């Protein structure tokens, strides 16, 4: 079989790329056969709503992991951005534009700080810098709210979290789709996007090619903060409340989405669509296990197993590829 360029299609490669999608489809089919509620409009829109917050955070995380980094502060950034908006309405500022701009400002700022810590302060690994900011901004979120939730957001701010467009499709999921398309174009069709892959693939070669690696890293962490702020907006809208303790497991869910979606932990490899599938797979599994009546404890076990299996399949594929390359040298 040949594709449009007249080159042979590598079935193994197509299969490995579609692996997570295949898993998502199979799980969905199994659940719609096994339960009556799964394939209902109500449940599908529910899944979209549930998936949107994690999908937005995972998109930011995906770019960070592409550079070979990690961001453990995403949950704290989300809570902090939400609480900044909460504190504003508590002080009587109800202008939706002002609220939204401040939320985004707060999230992006923390992401920028993460980038500065990594590059300018030369902390040896983002694991360290972001575990620091994870604590700092969780603390600040609790401090500015006096550790209690704040409710009463204006309708316009609630809209991204609660609104539906047609067919009951939630606005939040539409945001996810629009952002993902935007990120896809950014990563594949802009110089900065390609440079992000280059930095993750081989930092030294990127530097020798004249790229400003530090600048690229700072931008990536700032974008990650921005995406967390987006998640915060959806979150306060959905609950009409800013919780200072929200998103405490957001980091691990986002990382898991990326990994299941085939983003390489070593950097330089991965697609935004894989991340979306990873995020959806986690949500569908949770949803399905709920429908079956499995306990929350059981859900943890299943999600954990899925992560390990997904990466193991990838490892098997990579080592098979390396061996076939070596055997080709036999000739």
């Amino acid at each position, binding site marked *: 079989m040949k594709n449009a360029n007249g080159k042979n299609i590598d079935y193994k490669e197509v299969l490995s790329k579609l692996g997570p999608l295949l898993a998502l489809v199979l799980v969905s089919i199994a659940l719609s056969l096994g339960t009556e509620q799964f394939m209902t409009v109500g449940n599908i829109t529910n899944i979209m709503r549930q998936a949107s917050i994690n999908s937005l955070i995972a998109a930011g995380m995906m770019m960070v992991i592409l550079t070979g980094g990690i961001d453990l502060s995403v949950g704290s950034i989300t809570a902090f951005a939400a609480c900044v908006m909460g504190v504003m309405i508590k002080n009587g500022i109800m202008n939706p534009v002002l609220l939204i701009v401040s939320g985004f400002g707060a999230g992006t700022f923390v992401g920028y700080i993460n980038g500065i810590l990594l590059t300018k302060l030369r902390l040896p690994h983002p694991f360290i810098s972001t575990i620091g900011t994870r604590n700092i901004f969780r603390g600040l979120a609790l401090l500015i709210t006096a550790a209690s939730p704040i409710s009463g957001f204006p309708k316009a701010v609630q809209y991204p979290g609660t609104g539906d467009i047609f067919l009951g499709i939630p606005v939040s999921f539409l945001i996810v789709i629009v952002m993902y398309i935007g990120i896809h174009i950014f990563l594949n069709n802009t110089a900065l996007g*390609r440079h992000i892959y280059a930095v993750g693939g081989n930092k030294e070669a990127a530097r020798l090619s004249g790229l400003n690696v530090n600048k690229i890293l700072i931008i990536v962490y700032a974008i990650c903060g921005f995406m967390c702020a987006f998640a915060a907006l959806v979150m306060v809208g959905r609950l009409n409340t800013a919780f200072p303790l929200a998103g405490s497991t957001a980091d691990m869910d986002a990382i898991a989405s990326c990994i299941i979606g085939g983003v390489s932990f070593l950097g*330089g490899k991965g697609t935004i669509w894989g991340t979306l599938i990873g995020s959806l797979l986690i949500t569908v599994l949770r949803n399905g296990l709920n429908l079956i009546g499995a306990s929350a404890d059981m859900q943890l076990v299943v999600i954990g197993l899925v992560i390990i299996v997904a990466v193991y399949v990838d490892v098997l594929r990579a080592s098979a590829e390396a061996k076939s390359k070596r*055997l080709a040298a036999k000739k």
Partner: protein
Amino acid sequence: MTQPFIKLENITKKFPGVVALNNVSLDLYQGEIHGLIGENGAGKSTFIKVLTGVHTPEKGEIILKGNPIKIENTKHAIDLEIGCIYQELNNIPQLSVTDNIFLGCQLKKKSGLLDYETMHKKARELLKDLGQDIDPTLPIEKLGMGHQQMVEIVKAITKDIKMLIMDEPTSSLSETEVKELVDAVRKLKNKGVGILFVSHKLEEIFELCDKVTVFRDGQHVITGNVSDFTNDLLIQNMVGREITQQFPKIEFKKGEEILKVENFTRYGVYRKINFSLSRGEILGFSGLVGAGRTELIRGIFGADPIDEGKLYLNGKEVNINSPEAAVRNRFALLTEDRKTQGLVLNASILSNLIITCLCKFKKGLFLDNTKICKAVDHNIKSLQIKTPSPDTLAEQLSGGNQQKVVVGKWLNSDAEIYIFDEPTRGIDVGAKVEVYNLMNKILEENKAIIMISSELPEILGMSDRVIVMRNGNITAEIKRNSKQFTQEDIMHASWDDSAIKE
């Protein structure tokens, strides 16, 4: 010919303990392919690094098109139209061919988005100019080494390079790929690009180059038209390193065979390697860097999987599939890089010395500290490790003393087969002799040594037998008492492809 593109005059570059380049002068012209050859450590790499601005010479002048200049760094060198394709290719494996070629200088559409259509087209054209039909949309890691080289060349062309340095470009290429590369380099030459072609393959020098220069021990030996040279004449010019050092070699009586390696093969790296090793013997492995020696011993030690082959210890077949199994079977590997692989640098000498034999010091459930201190004190004395105390950190020792700690660590482990990879690299002369004395001590205990060394004097000084490798094959096996146990014969075997027996 007219004015040289770049003229190097009396370049001297020193590193602690060595003069890497000593008063070297060379003229390089555009539209000319200039071969550079020399033994390991002759100064070729340092010379390249001077040209690309990685090293600044202490003495000497660099004159570019008639103007004296100072090359600040790699980027500055590229601005001066001097480019280099390193042996370790500097590409980003996951990115496409086009992305790699245009990295840092992408073409954009009016909208600011990348203009992949034009970039792919241009990449395809440039590759076609070199006679290559490569799909520029493929990730570069999917290409073979030959095509990856081509992409590197195209990358240089897009940066308007006028002087291209190629550091052993053919070392990892197959025969067909070499032919394609040779064609591409000729096409570059016809475009007026000058090429400095560093190679370990004499036949390529004769096929491709207009001029050739030989370096030896950091000195310029000879430059001339290739047509004025023969194989033998080039080799003669490369050898002749003076053996100034005395080696404390003691020849022990050979015992029974301890190790036999049969048909060891790792495809594309080394193949059908056969040799045996006897107690009381030092078996030297000579050859050029990249001949597959280090890879072979990593295979024997179980650090990398092999594709075919058998290994016999004391006449019995054993399967060593991990370094752990190797150590259990009494192998010891003393790696080339002591700092990252041999020692725990921020631990004490004491901890480093007993790391392989802790179970010997058990007293009930606990470790017997008095016994440990005694043993370590004895180690330090017998190995003559110069240190204020056993608690000194390993990183505070000199290279020679660090090597002694590594030897001591394995002596304590009851190892019987010692594999030394470049045992005296980066060690001063006095300490070298002490390391050689330790080798004698190992042999005296009826054990055996495999020694990989790129220093011919060391190979000749210490080995009882030497095996020469080239391109993953054994090309010669020479005994110490043979008439061929000379620098010239070893050099012939490590440089000449015709020496490879099927």
